[in-house]
């Protein structure tokens, strides 16, 4: 690992890319803490909620690297971009014109990317307006005595909206720049950064609340989780595949490199996000439907069993949902029939198994078997932090950076990026490192 970094820095080309990425990262962090014009910095600092009181905003705040609750110029974060790409993706199903573009290769894809950018801007305007509306009405910072946005005139509001929208545009650009000229996938890297940026802050909270001994235990524990996640993430089942389309001359190759890999965690982090979002819903609904003061039985039950993350019922539901979504997600994204069909078309087969239906059935069998441990692993990683809730105080802790979602995302992005550096090294650094 260290040798990889060393040789990466020794390769001028790669060093340039890494430095470029770091430069963007620095600019990005500066932007994330630069207050938007018209925002009272002191008021915002005074009103920073304690961990656990953020409620619904915590996920958004996590994804914006804390910029949201700072009301900084990057408050809107990259969420508008993520939403826009999902929407454009979905529109390719509905709008024939989009479907056509999608099929037209690079040129069409470029056009779709352009549309995604426009939509991002539109969504950013909406989100920025929403953020400001919440902030001025005091909805964002509970029990805040001061006005975070002192001047709520139309002009001033428009200026903030404009700034935040521009912030999102700049972020989008930064992400693309990293993808294009830096290392790794820019957007993923920015998300990674946002989550990682919270680590020191949360660490400090634990340290000041619980003292050094607990802090040390947590650190060891977190390292253990991360390394086991890294371990499992790289686990895969390799199904041997043979291609019998060519009459190979002198020798056949052992087939060490021709295999179909199925990851233990084939579904990635998506099931966890689905499950946790679903668990937020009851809380959100009850807040919307009933006034703050009223306490119905529904609300009480929800608060007791579903919203309270340290309750066993909550943990059990969460775990079950993750397992369900893992199977569900894999069943939509890994179409065994299509895979078997493709292999058949290109002359491939699994030795001992006939192509077509039998191959599909075999893949289905293997996939189902591997998904069980995979989903249990996901569930465990996701619920583990719930047992340590008391460490950072009460309440919603799911999105605390050592939580399941965050660790899974961070490890995923980090592995990808390291792999990319490695592969670039392999391509570039022929002499020295590789020989």
């Amino acid at each position: 690992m260290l040798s990889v970094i060393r040789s990466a820095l020794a390769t001028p080309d790669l060093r340039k890319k890494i430095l470029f990425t770091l430069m963007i990262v620095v600019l990005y962090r500066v932007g994330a803490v630069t207050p938007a014009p018209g925002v009272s910095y002191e008021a915002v600092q005074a009103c920073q909620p304690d961990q656990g009181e953020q409620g619904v905003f915590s996920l958004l705040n996590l994804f914006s690297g804390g910029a949201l609750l700072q009301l900084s110029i990057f408050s809107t974060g990259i969420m508008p971009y993520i939403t826009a790409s999902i929407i454009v993706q979905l529109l390719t199903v509905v709008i024939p014109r989009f479907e056509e573009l999608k099929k037209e290769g690079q040129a069409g894809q470029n056009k779709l990317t352009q549309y995604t950018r426009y939509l991002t801007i539109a969504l950013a305007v909406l989100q920025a307006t929403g953020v400001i509306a919440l902030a001025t009405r005091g909805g964002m910072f509970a029990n805040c005595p001061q006005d975070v946005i002192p001047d709520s005139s139309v002009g001033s509001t428009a200026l903030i909206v404009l700034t935040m929208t521009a912030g999102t545009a700049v972020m989008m650009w930064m992400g693309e720049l990293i993808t294009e000229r830096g290392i790794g996938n820019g957007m993923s890297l920015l998300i990674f950064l946002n989550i990682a940026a919270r680590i020191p802050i949360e660490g400090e909270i634990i340290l000041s609340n619980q003292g050094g001994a607990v802090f040390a235990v947590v650190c060891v524990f977190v390292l253990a989780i991360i390394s086991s996640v890294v371990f499992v993430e790289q686990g895969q089942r390799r199904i041997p595949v043979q291609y019998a389309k060519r009459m190979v001359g002198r020798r056949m190759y052992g087939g060490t490199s021709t295999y179909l890999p199925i990851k233990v965690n084939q579904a990635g982090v998506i099931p966890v996000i689905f499950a946790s979002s679903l668990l937020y819903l009851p809380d959100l609904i009850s807040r919307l439907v009933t006034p703050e003061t009223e306490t119905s039985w529904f609300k009480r039950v929800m608060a007791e069993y579903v919203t309270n993350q340290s309750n066993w019922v909550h943990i059990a539901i969460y775990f079950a949902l993750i397992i369900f979504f893992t199977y569900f997600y894999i069943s939509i994204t890994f179409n065994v029939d299509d895979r078997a069909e493709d292999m058949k078309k290109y002359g491939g087969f699994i030795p001992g198994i006939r192509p077509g239906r039998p191959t599909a059935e075999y893949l289905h069998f293997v996939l189902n078997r591997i998904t069980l441990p995979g989903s249990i692993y996901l569930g465990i990683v996701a619920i583990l932090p719930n047992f340590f809730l008391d460490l950072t105080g009460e309440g919603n802790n799911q999105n605390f950076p050592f939580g399941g979602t965050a660790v899974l995302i961070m490890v995923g992005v980090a592995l990808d990026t390291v792999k990319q550096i490695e592969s670039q090294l392999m391509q570039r650094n022929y002499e020295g490192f590789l020989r």
Partner: protein
Amino acid sequence: MALARTPVTKRIGQVLRRLIERPASVSLAKYEKLLPQIEQREDEVRALSDDELTARAGKLRDGEPSDSFSNEQLIEICALGREAGRRALGERAFDVQLLGVMGLLTGHVVEMATGEGKTLVGALAASGYALRGKRVHVISVNDYLARRDAEWMRPVFELLGVTVGWVEPSRTHEERRNAYHCDVTYGAVSEIGFDVLRDRLVTDVEQRVMAKADVAIVDEADSVLVDEARVPLVMAGSVDANDADEEVAKIVRRLRPGLHYETDPDGRNAWLTPAGASVVEKALGGINLYDEEGSERLAAVNVALHAHALLTRDVDYIVRDGKVQLINASRGRVAELQRWPDGLQAAVEVKEQLPPSDRGEVLDSITVQALVGSYPTVAGMTGTAVAVAETLREFYRLEVAVIPPNAPVVRVDEDDRIFDSPSSKLRAIVAEIKRVHAEGRPILVGTQDVAESEELAEKLRKAGLECTVLNARNDAEEAEIIAEAGKKGAITVSTQMAGRGTDIKLGGSNGTPEERAEVVELGGLYVIGTARYPSSRLDDQLRGRAGRQGDPGGSIFFASLNDDLVVSGAPDVPDGLVPDDDGEISHPAAKRHIDHAQRVMEGANLEIHRNTWRYTRLIERQRSDLLEFREKVLTTDVAAEYLQSEESEASKHYDDVVEKLGEDKARRMAREVLLFHLDQLWSDHLAFLADVRESIHLRALGKETPIDEFHRAAIPEYHKIIPTAKERLAETFQDAEVVDGELDVAAVGVRRPTSTWTYLVHDNPFDSDAEQALKKVRGLLRKKRW
């Protein structure tokens, strides 16, 4: 001239128009300013005798060599070149042509309308480079054009004191070497590429034919750099007699489509159905095709099935002189010395009941990118560059500059006529030819393949219309056929081969001015395309045969919703396209759909290109690394030194050989043996990579990046090559014995290349997760619509 003196307002207008219409191109405005100065020098140059002209051109050779040209040098080159062209060919280069020359001299790809005299432009630019001490290769798209252009331009080069040569497949070793040692060498991209490959495999420095060249001027740049670049040039050498499985071929011949095997709509793959597999297994004596042991037989079945179901005589290949000859799809010509890989060639030969040829083994390969990238300076010219400007920038870092036509194009391009079925389309084409022919207007029909050209010719003859067919079968008569295609009343049915570099003169090549005037009166050449090509550039190239140099002309394309283009590009034809009684569909959606299908194909082809490039970049790097070592072996005594220094038994054996054969011979033997092993290991390495490449896309299922995994597999394998080669060298010397004053090393010696082939694999045929989910949704929506 007119260009340089246009008023400012108009110039601004031009700049704006350029930005809007051709966003990817650069401006040559600063070179336009030189045109008046070139003209000023004209009288002075005209007064020179031939010898004085040559001498004056020779003066350009003086001075420090540099990579760029000063304005003074540009002016001088253009002025002398224009005069040389006038004297030698009777063609005084137009201003726009000189602008093209300057565009080439400054390393651009220039877009010039067809018929604007690109050949002369290329020749003048080549002389310009040559006069500054550079060695130039003019790379053309085929052998015919390379030879024609070199011969045609020779007098111009001679007047300028520049030597010129050309290469083509039939030339001898000596002729090639002479050609490459000229200042300017013309050659087809494949020919130059193969010479590079052959030079890489020599065992003696003396055997090399090429001399290091500095500049590549690429004619028909889009075709060479984009279309041809999709597949690498691969050189193969024969290993042993082919062992095509005749038993399997016989069995496969009995299989029935649909029941026993299926093919995909774009005709790239064929596979057995379960029923077909059991039939084959039973016929082969009850084996299991799908276990480890059966896989060799399965490969034979698959190859035979491919030959049987997917390759059609007269479309993909023709049988001529008892041999199967491939047809290059993008040119419509016979691809000389080209074969299918991996036993497919033999399977086709068995299918046609011809004697099987030798089996080949890939010795080395190079991509067009790597080939072109090896020249320090690259420039290009074509009639259709703007459409691929992005690609040229991405892959070659070349900028496109657009040269305005000398005379405005007045060709009338009519709207496509679209039909519901191939038969109604064919009827309409025949009717259209009949109608236009009745006026006496010459017609050029561009078809998709040999079979179609012949079918159409047959139909025309039945309708009482006499026509000339130009296709891969009679490409030798190409020049004569094209020469007469512009005559009054001529009907020429051609494949794509009439698409590039051929100049159709109205009234025929030797026509009198009256004959020409008569054809002009009739509206010039009328071009009919029988189907849209897989790229709009190819369409434009065909259209470009008419309306050259301000001649009148017309073009029209016919298309049907069952054309191959539509079937493979966009099989979901929109509803509600109702044909009229003749099967013609006038609804604009039909045209839109066909345009869409064409864009899909363009996108897919670009993707193939990009993939070839990405995968071969690593291979090229490994190759150049290995070649460095090979060069050392070739030019020094590394091999012998290694054997001597070796503490193993080999050193004793080597000393033995030295004693018996003498120092010199022993060193040579060591060198040759090591070179042989290096070449063979490289060939094995390529085979290994091809094998890995075939299945690497599966890695995407495990969320890995196929290209990275490819590298991961390829690199450790590569690093074994040199140590293994040395080991084998030692082994050879241990085992070989001295017989009759020679070291008897069986199988030593580089096998001469005998054939070439191509391979194509998609990177990731799977979609991303999101894509998969969307597909499901799409499927559900479709069902609902029902």
